[in-house]
């Protein structure tokens, strides 16, 4: 017997008493109609030039531009970068712009993100830093070094995380120095980023430097989860069959 079963989406046959919702808050049985202005199919089937044009169109809606950014993440090339970069300063669309830019392999995307560091503040700046870190843009290290001392703790934490992901000897030195002068949540972020940085060093063949960074992170004044992780990672590195002998 063959069957096409209709069952609950979480795969469980029996559900217990869930926290009870107030009657007025219970989910409707059917989803509301999608308004025509929020239907994405036409935009998602457009080619890159049409999507770029949509981003430049002052009459285009937030929804249209948002979906164009998401589609350009898959099909956009160097030509799409200026239009996406122009949205990095738009509070409603900045994330969508990064959604589009982050996966574009062309270095023009790095240039645009680095350029945006000088144009945005607060959470938008955090987003740009996160994208530079995600792309491991080594050219951003100097700018990120300055942001490590930002008076905005979210910016400083993002800069630390980005430096950790980019890794390398210079990033390691910056983070190690940062560990000496930062406090509170920023210091915790610097410590966590240092762990990631040390792993990067090991992967790049900078074994001694990586292990030394772990050693720094084992100091008693380092937040406990990171301290324990540094011990754990040191043990793993020193006992790995792939270690240098």
């Amino acid at each position, binding site marked *: 017997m*063959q*069957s096409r079963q209709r069952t609950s989406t979480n*795969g469980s046959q029996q559900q217990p008493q869930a*926290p009870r919702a107030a009657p007025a808050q219970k*989910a409707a049985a059917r989803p509301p109609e999608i308004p025509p202005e929020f239907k994405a199919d036409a935009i998602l089937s457009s080619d890159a030039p049409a999507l770029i044009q949509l981003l430049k169109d002052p009459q285009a809606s937030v929804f249209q531009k948002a979906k164009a950014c998401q589609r350009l993440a898959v099909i956009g090339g160097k030509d799409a970068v200026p239009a996406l970069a122009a949205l990095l300063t738009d509070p409603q669309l900045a*994330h969508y712009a990064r959604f589009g830019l982050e996966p574009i392999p062309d270095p023009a995307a790095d240039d645009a993100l680095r350029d945006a560091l000088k144009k945005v503040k607060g959470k938008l700046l955090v987003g740009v830093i*996160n994208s530079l870190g995600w792309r491991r843009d080594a050219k951003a290290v100097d700018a990120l070094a300055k942001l490590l001392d930002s008076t905005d703790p979210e910016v400083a934490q993002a800069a630390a995380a980005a430096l950790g992901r980019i890794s390398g000897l210079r990033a390691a030195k910056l983070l190690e120095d940062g560990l000496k002068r930062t406090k509170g949540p920023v210091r915790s972020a610097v410590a966590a980023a240092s762990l990631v940085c040390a792993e990067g060093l090991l992967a790049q063949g900078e074994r001694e430097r990586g292990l030394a960074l772990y050693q720094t992170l084992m100091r008693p004044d380092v937040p406990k989860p990171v301290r324990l992780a540094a011990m754990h990672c040191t043990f793993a590195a020193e006992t790995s069959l792939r270690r240098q002998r």
Partner: protein
Amino acid sequence: MSHTSVLVNRRQFLKSGASAATPLIVPSSVLGRQAGAVPPSDRIVLGGIGIGNRGAYDLQAFLQQRDVQFVAVCDVREERREAVKSMVDKHYGNRDCAVYSEHYELLARGDIDAVLIATGDRWHALLSIHAAQHGKDVYCEKPCSMTIAESQALAEAFRRYGRIYQAGCQRRNGGNFVLAVELARSGKLGKLRTLHAQTVDARSMPPVPSHDWLPAEPEPSKLVVDWDRWLGPCPWRPYNHFYVQGRWRNYFDFHGGSILEWGSHTADLCQWANDSDHTQPIEYVPEGSNRGPFAVRCRYANGVMLVLRDSGWLGLGSCSVRFEGDEGWVETGDTSKMEASENLREFLHPPSDYRTALPNHVRDFLNCVKSRSQPRANAQAAANTHIACHAAYIAFQLGRKLTWDPVKAEFVGDEEANRMRSRAMREPWRI
């Protein structure tokens, strides 16, 4: 606000002079001498984040374990926070369960050993990673990630921090599923040929979710529902109550589609059956339509096929799997019933009730929290299963065969597919 400065955990208390100065009258429950009592030193202190319908099911399983003390819940929805507090307080007969709307406050508590995460999928990987960074062990509902990149980051974080992670893939501790896997792994089926994994019926949940938005509604007060926090790392869109009340599935920004929805259970069992918890299939061939029926045929490096499909099952219940070798086959599902080729029927002992899977799975996690060994659905195994499901989804969405390099974690010669391995997170979130 951090709680680490004001809260003292039991170990700190015992070390402090206060404990030495206190008259030494120790209740027998503290020493574990009451019948069935567990001394505090053996209890696992648990917090919960995003406990809704499914989370309540998990939480009940945790509360049934005598060595668990649930102390705090965090949710962006006031209604949920209060409902869970009420449930927990009723269970313990007190009013001690703390409530938070900000997960960092819960994770900062030094007395919490582990967290149960049962938010929507969009938060699973990020919260799990944050928990590991705060030194917590994690039991997290599936699907555990939204992308290949999140899956990798999840495994890396739990390896880096040496924390215990159990994905909510409870069928790894369900008697009938375990027996089927054992038949495959022990060679009773002969050389494995094809592993079949059921996905959700495409008519109720398509493999490729919608990019549409629901109509905009006024946002409720932040105290009632913090919409910004609810969205978390996902792209902003206007509020609609429908998403918040558990109907967020089938929308691309919040959901990975039907392959991941059940593949995180069923492909997971196939990965285990093929002894592939450390890797993923190397080839993905999609067929069928988004309205079903559909399949993605995947090939492992050892030649075994994994077929993710939504139709053609024997009717043994949701989340069915079927393992075929050159000497026999076995199929089972959530009814707990099993079917097998004639030569294997002698091995089909009366199957245990599938409903024991969750308590077993929770117990597996708690045992590993104590022993520091790896549970069955650990971060590495879960990450590899999820990467396989995401890769299958990407192949289906692109509508073409993809080749995957599990070592480099990249598709071979397909830039579009590679771009779909990650999604930029909304600021300030990152992995």
